[in-house]
């Protein structure tokens, strides 16, 4: 592991000032915030991340879950995944989020991992994690061996000629469907980012994964007021029954009145280069009777632009069936 200086900033302002000196907040940052460490320490051991300074933010007062005046929920950046998943209000009003988190990682990792760290979770693409291999995300311009190599688990939506890495987060898929907002404090002040605008498509700059710049600190995530009577489901399909990343997953938030779908929010995981909200599937469901025809046509719409890699053509049908089954199960719940 690259040697670094370990600093515990006394407050958010000091953390932001120290991080603002980094050349970038993206891949290869020389200053990193340390949350739970479950991604960062792993990547530092692999020399994929080599910060000169590590800022331990774990003792900043950003660990509360609070109601917002508009009936929503404010989730501090340092709330641990397990605390969020088991929170009574999340289990009651945002069940899809609780289910998504509990479908990810393990009890130990969920006790460590923070909400903001999960938002910033890095891909599991084997080439990204191996410094002996080229990788455009890790070393811009070095090439993407995944395109012709091991890509069974990689993206079929949102990939480019430069990168086909999947976003591995489960939590983010639920947050995309719940239309969360990410709140950031940085050297230039505070601002709010709609969840769908936070992660970037790889394009020809796969080393840029989010809109964050040096010194930008996620302080909290907010969820809008829950939709009364909505049906929630997170369905995850994977190679093992537990402790495995998704081959395909679906987060579904449905409102049904008189047998018709009045509102649908849909996001997919395991298939996209970012947490994959599907406005196409939502449009295909809006106003339709809640039946198999509507569910399957939504799945067809969600995957219409999918492009398989050499090893994962199966993911297109898998993702369609995953979404269809999630819709069917949620509607019947």
């Amino acid at each position, binding site marked *: *592991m690259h040697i670094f200086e370990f600093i515990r900033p006394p407050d958010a302002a000091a953390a932001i000032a120290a991080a603002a000196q980094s050349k970038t907040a993206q891949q290869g940052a020389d200053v990193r915030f*340390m949350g739970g460490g479950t991604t960062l*320490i792993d990547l530092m051991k692999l020399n994929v991340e080599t910060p000169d300074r590590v800022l331990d933010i774990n003792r900043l007062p950003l660990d509360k879950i609070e109601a917002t005046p508009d009936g929503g929920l404010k989730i501090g950046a340092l709330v641990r995944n397990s605390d969020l998943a088991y929170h009574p209000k999340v289990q009651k009003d945002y069940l899809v989020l609780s289910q998504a988190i509990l479908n990810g990682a393990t*009890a*130990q990792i969920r006790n460590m991992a923070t909400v903001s760290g999960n938002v910033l979770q890095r891909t599991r693409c084997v080439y990204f994690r191996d410094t002996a291999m080229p990788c455009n995300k890790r070393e811009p311009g070095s090439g993407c061996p995944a395109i012709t190599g091991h890509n069974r688990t990689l993206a079929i939506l949102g990939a480019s000629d430069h990168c086909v890495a999947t976003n591995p987060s489960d939590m983010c898929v639920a947050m995309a469907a719940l239309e969360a907002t990410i709140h950031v404090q940085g050297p230039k002040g505070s601002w709010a980012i709609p969840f769908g605008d936070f992660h970037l498509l790889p394009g020809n700059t796969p080393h840029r994964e989010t809109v964050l710049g040096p010194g930008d600190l996620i302080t909290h995530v907010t969820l809008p007021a829950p939709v009364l009577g909505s049906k929630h489901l997170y369905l995850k399909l994977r190679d093992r029954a537990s*402790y495995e990343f998704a081959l395909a997953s679906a987060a579904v938030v449905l409102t049904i009145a008189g047998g018709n779908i009045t509102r649908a929010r849909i996001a997919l995981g395991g298939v996209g280069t970012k947490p994959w909200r599907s406005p196409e599937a939502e449009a295909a469901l809006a106003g339709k009777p809640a039946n198999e025809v509507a569910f399957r046509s939504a799945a067809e719409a969600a995957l219409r632009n999918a492009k398989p890699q050499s090893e994962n053509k199966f993911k297109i049908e898998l993702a369609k069936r995953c979404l269809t089954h999630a819709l069917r199960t949620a509607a019947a719940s």
Partner: protein
Amino acid sequence: MSDNDPKWRPPNPTRRKFLLTTGSGVAASMVAGYVPALAKDAAAKSNSAQTSGGPNIDGAVPITLRINGKEHSVRIDPRTTLLDCLRETVALTGTKKGCDHGQCGACTVHVNGRRVLSCLNLALMHDGEEITTVEGLGTPDAMHPMQASFLACDAYQCGYCTSGQIMSAVALLKEPCGPDDASVKELMSGNICRCGAYANIVAAIQQVRKNA
């Protein structure tokens, strides 16, 4: 003496003691050679409340860790994981290093009563926090109920993953977990057992939960 005798206790020489006392000189020197000099130094002082050790290298920083109710003041390289600090600096080798990347659970310890992976934590992140390792759970004469249950249910083969399994299992008792085996399996999925003692591990945990 038999398994049916309620007063029966299994013979409990530790593997380390066994090798040191009955093994050949080669075995003994292998074990002695395995324990780093500084760790031995720390172990020798372990009767006092304070231990000091760690490499005297450039950039080492002082830290006080509270482990199993005892304070340990040590100097460590900032890169030292909690796992390496426990094993190599404080000489508490009950916590095991399996994959060192958060994939196997062998290094599971408790921080402030919650189970975490000590391999994906820097020791420096934990000054002042309450760390519990398997050494703090029970003793051979007064085992934690989970340790006794693992023994009674034969919930291990080679034993390498066992301390991590037990630390996870003890934490699970306080977590929201359904009554069925499937719920236990799901919440124990972060602890891999290469020998495949899973069925007995689940049985050991369920026995403790039933008696709780």
